[in-house]
């Protein structure tokens, strides 16, 4: 294949408007809740108001007798075919994993857990009857605070005897990837600097726009589930593995899905209940959650304490990093819940050459909503820690924070570079991205303004924050996943079908839920096959159409799924060549493919790929013995992760009288390799930044002492909108990845991973002058003001989570 070399890539690099947007923004979309089937029944859930309680009795008589109610189910009614909810990534062989039943039986373990389900002829009747189910609870002491829970004084699951689920450790000395971190710390204590910090990763709620919804149709030969999920293939596998229905009898469809951000990569009690109930009542059933239910029952993200020790020489060379994490799982180990912090383990060293590294993560069970992947999944937490530490170290040494980073980062001549965490970074150019970001940002001018405001004692102080991030995405090389005891592979599948009319039908195993795959993937196929963009149709999200796949998360769709697509398209061309040669009465070796046309070298003779497709369809005149098909499929297993990086610079104004933080300027230069569609990439960066900034300043899932989610609605869980953000100054550098054909790197999570520390570093940069060392996220006005006030009063200048709140 020499398409890209021989002619300009017509489609790759074009800022095509998204194909799917006409449908999505005019309301002619089909979300799960839009699906209405004949005779369909509706479910409503009865949920526990208590974080931890014994269920002493459930009286459903009144609910059962209510108008239009078909059935009420409790745990007592379930049988084995209801299945259980699985954890696919036990991070250690001795991980303590509570059984996660689809309905709580004698004990509820978080406020929001389902204890009964009402089945009725309308959603309203189901809701009304749910109010009539009378559940008696005996409250139990609840394990709520993460730091207390790890002490095991109050147990989230008394039968397990401990809240400690798993301790996962990586040590560079033991792994042979670096030195001994304790030696580095001892040396630095004697002659160098040691920075010790404890940072809090606030708990977040993915807050996707479309609440979760599931429809199950048990009629027909195969059972069909529609679900607002990111992972139809994984849901299908898990249903087969746990409910006894053979996999080939199960069809799972993710129709239009309105956002996920990791929040929909779960297998959920709601899906499993709908599946089981539809099979009991032999009728289609639907369940659509309310926003309130979504906030308490869909998994949350982050929620860690990070104890960090950074050792460095006096001139600012980092010599060792020790990371001790405590991570809150909630009351069950979600599908990859325990694995999220483990993904972070490989990223704490970030873009830096750190000679010695130790990482330990203790996952902990509590009586709170379960946690799992949320945009970035482990890497935002790691990036936050290291980027905060680097700025703190610069401050300690009186160095410019960019200069300190430069002193420690991997230079572009050093790629490929094997890190202390054992990953091989294929490419990157941190110097170029940083130089360009500084220029666009106006770094020197803003520093001058900062100095002026400081000198004048302006009530509004300026702060500049830096984050020079990288991340590992493109999940994932299957062997690496195997070595981490993950329960599946990381490959992706694609098939390309040349239709009789010359149109192209492509099925991808990735499952878009807002990313724009239909557009970007069409661009790739259009270039590869030399067909018009409009002639390519991308099918996804239905296990009977996209027959193989591992779905969408971890910024994998383009770099893994896109590569499968390239390989399948290239096979189509290879299969078409002999047909073209036959039609042109030429030797296969003399055929060259360019711009959608097979030509005979040195002549004008040629046929288009559409003509070949037509000839294959009629099969009237094919080479002897040739199978009448040029369709092809490919399954691609990545050889490495994929490492986008970038330099993010953020300026904030801090009103020292109120603690209010306002964004002043946000510049980022992201290196995401070759860009297929700049418009989509920009959209991903903007949305990612918004979510990362939200963690820094606004969003916080807070439970009270009784284990009730206090920020359980959008009145209290503050999701920023465009009105709260500024016009982002987003740019690109491009160092093509060397591990895939197109040179692409993932961009789905980059903005979220990079921005949180950039913002917090900026806030601290504004107020360090008063003696403030840390502000717990989200940096609310109350916390910022309290930190300034405390520092001015001569305190340590740090805040606790509760301060000012």
């Amino acid at each position, binding site marked *: 294949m020499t398409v890209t070399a021989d002619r300009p890539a017509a489609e790759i690099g074009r800022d095509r408007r998204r194909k799917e947007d006409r449908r999505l923004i005019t309301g002619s979309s089909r979300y799960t809740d839009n699906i209405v089937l004949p005779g369909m029944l509706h479910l409503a859930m009865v949920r526990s108001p208590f974080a931890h309680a014994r269920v002493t009795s459930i009286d459903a008589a009144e609910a059962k007798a209510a108008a239009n109610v078909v059935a009420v189910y409790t745990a007592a009614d379930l049988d084995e075919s209801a299945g259980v909810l699985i954890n696919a990534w036990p991070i250690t062989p001795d991980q303590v994993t509570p059984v996660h039943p689809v309905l709580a039986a004698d004990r509820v373990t978080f406020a929001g857990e389902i204890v009964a389900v009402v089945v009725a002829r309308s959603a309203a009747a189901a*809701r009304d009857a749910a109010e009539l189910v009378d559940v008696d609870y005996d409250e139990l002491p609840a394990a709520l605070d993460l730091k207390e829970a790890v002490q095991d004084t109050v147990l989230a699951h008394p039968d397990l005897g401990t809240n400690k689920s798993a301790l996962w450790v990586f040590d560079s000395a033991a792994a042979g990837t670096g030195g001994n971190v304790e030696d580095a710390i001892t040396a630095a204590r004697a002659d160098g600097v040691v920075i010790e910090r404890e940072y809090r990763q606030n708990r977040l709620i993915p807050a996707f726009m479309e609440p979760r919804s599931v429809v199950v149709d048990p009629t027909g030969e195969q059972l069909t589930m529609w679900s607002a999920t990111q992972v139809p293939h994984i849901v299908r596998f898990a249903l087969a593995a746990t409910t006894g229905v053979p996999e080939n009898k199960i069809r799972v469809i993710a129709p239009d899905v309105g956002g996920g951000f990791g929040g929909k990569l779960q297998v959920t009690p709601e899906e499993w209940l709908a599946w089981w109930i539809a099979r009991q009542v032999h009728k289609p059933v639907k369940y659509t959650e*309310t926003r309130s239910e979504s906030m308490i029952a869909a998994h949350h993200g982050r929620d860690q304490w990070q104890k960090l020790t950074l050792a460095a020489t006096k001139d600012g060379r980092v010599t060792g990093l020790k990371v001790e994490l405590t991570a809150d799982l909630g009351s069950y180990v979600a599908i990859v819940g325990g694995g999220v912090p483990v993904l972070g383990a490989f990223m704490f060293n970030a873009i830096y050459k750190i000679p010695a590294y130790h990482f330990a993560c203790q996952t902990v069970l509590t009586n709170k909503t379960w946690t799992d992947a949320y945009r970035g999944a482990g890497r935002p937490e790691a990036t936050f820690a290291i980027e905060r530490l680097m700025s703190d170290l610069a401050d300690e040494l009186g160095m410019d924070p960019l200069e300190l980073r430069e002193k420690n980062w991997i230079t572009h001549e050093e790629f490929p570079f094997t890190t202390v965490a054992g990953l091989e970074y294929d490419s990157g150019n941190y110097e170029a991205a940083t130089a360009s970001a500084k220029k666009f940002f106006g770094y020197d001018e803003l520093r001058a303004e900062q100095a002026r405001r400081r000198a004048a004692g302006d009530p509004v102080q300026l702060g500049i924050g830096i984050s020079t991030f990288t991340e590992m995405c493109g999940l994932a090389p299957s062997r690496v996943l195997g070595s981490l005891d993950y329960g599946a592979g990381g490959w992706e599948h694609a098939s390309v079908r040349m239709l009789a009319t010359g149109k192209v039908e492509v099925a991808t195993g990735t499952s878009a839920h807002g990313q724009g795959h239909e557009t970007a993937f069409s661009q790739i196929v259009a270039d590869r096959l030399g067909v018009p963009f409009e002639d390519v149709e991308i099918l996804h999200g239905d296990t009977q159409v996209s027959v193989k796949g591992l779905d969408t998360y971890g910024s994998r769709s383009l770099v893994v799924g896109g590569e499968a697509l390239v390989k399948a398209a290239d096979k189509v061309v290879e299969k078409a060549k002999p047909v073209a040669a036959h039609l042109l009465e030429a030797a296969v070796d003399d055929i060259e493919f360019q711009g959608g046309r097979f030509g005979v070298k040195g002549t004008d003779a040629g046929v288009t790929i559409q003509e070949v497709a037509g000839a294959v369809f009629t099969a009237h005149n094919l080479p002897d013995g040739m199978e009448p098909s040029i369709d092809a499929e490919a399954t691609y297993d990545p050889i490495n992760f994929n490492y986008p990086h970038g330099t993010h610079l953020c300026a904030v104004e801090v009103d020292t009288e109120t603690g209010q933080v306002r964004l002043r300027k946000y510049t980022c230069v992201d290196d995401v390799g070759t860009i297929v569609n700049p418009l989509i990439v920009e959209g991903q960066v903007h949305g990612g930044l918004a979510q990362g900034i939200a963690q820094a300043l606004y969003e916080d899932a807070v439970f009270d002492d009784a284990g009730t989610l206090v920020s359980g609605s959008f009145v209290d869980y503050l999701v920023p*909108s465009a009105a709260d953000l500024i016009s982002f100054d987003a740019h690109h550098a491009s160092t093509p990845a060397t591990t895939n054909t197109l040179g692409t790197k993932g961009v789905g999570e980059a903005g979220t991973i990079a921005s949180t520390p950039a913002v917090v570093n900026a806030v601290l940069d504004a107020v360090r002058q008063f003696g403030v060392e840390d502000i717990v996220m989200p940096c609310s*006005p*109350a916390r910022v*003001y309290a930190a300034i006030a405390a520092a001015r009063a001569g305190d340590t200048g740090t805040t606790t989570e509760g301060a000012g*709140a």
Partner: protein
Amino acid sequence: MIPAAFDYAAPTTVDEALALLAEHGEDAKLIAGGQSLLPVLRLRLNAPEFVIDLGRIDALRGVRDDGGALVVGAMTTHATVATDPLIAQHAALVSKAVRTVADAQVRNRGTFGGALAHADPAGDVGAPALALGAQFVIAEQGGGRRTVDAGDFFVDLFETAIGEDELLTEIRIPKHTGWGAHYEKFVRIAQQWSIVAVAATVRAEGGTIAEARVALTNMGATPLRATAVEELLRGRPATEDAIRDAVSSVADGTSPPADLNGDADYRRHLARVLTRRAVLTAATG
């Protein structure tokens, strides 16, 4: 989420509405714009058996000039109030405060009277009404009308002087023509309820504060009028330092709520800063 079932009527006169209130007693609930009531019903925090919709009573809508006062019908939407020229001219504080309420959709449905009757302490219409000395006209059973001063209207959290079988018909706002006005609302994200807000309107005479009216949002169970501060401001130069000094006691004796946005002390601190800013802007434009 789906509210519990209820019956519904949409009368076209105040008398019919009063009759329905009398008939259904405490099982009945009035609905104006529904922007506070519907969330409550959908979350099933309340389940009235009978909902009386005031939306078809034309007499409750509109703004008119009544000499010394403006008269605003209870069912006048926030959007109308925010853009009404009479209000902008004679009660600029109200226009400015109402513009900070929620978003365009909510302002198009929500009503001035509904918001005042709902009496959410974090709502933005109570403090300006209180600062301007508004009067509330309440329709009683039997056809009578009673007028309640702003100081007596707000009773407690979500509680006003409107009786269970009564309804608010109009709000009379004394004209403050030529007064500078500012509503300083402190929020973390746009479209948030006030963490604290300060309503201030000032009659300035050549760089001096001749008269000032100040009221606080979300510094207690009801909007609070800061009469002591108003007195201290009288005759002061309209400068930052002079105002800072005069308003420093504005939060004394208040018991603001504590929540995820801040504790009571922080809110008291905010009240001082925001009052200074509100008065300074009202006085100097």
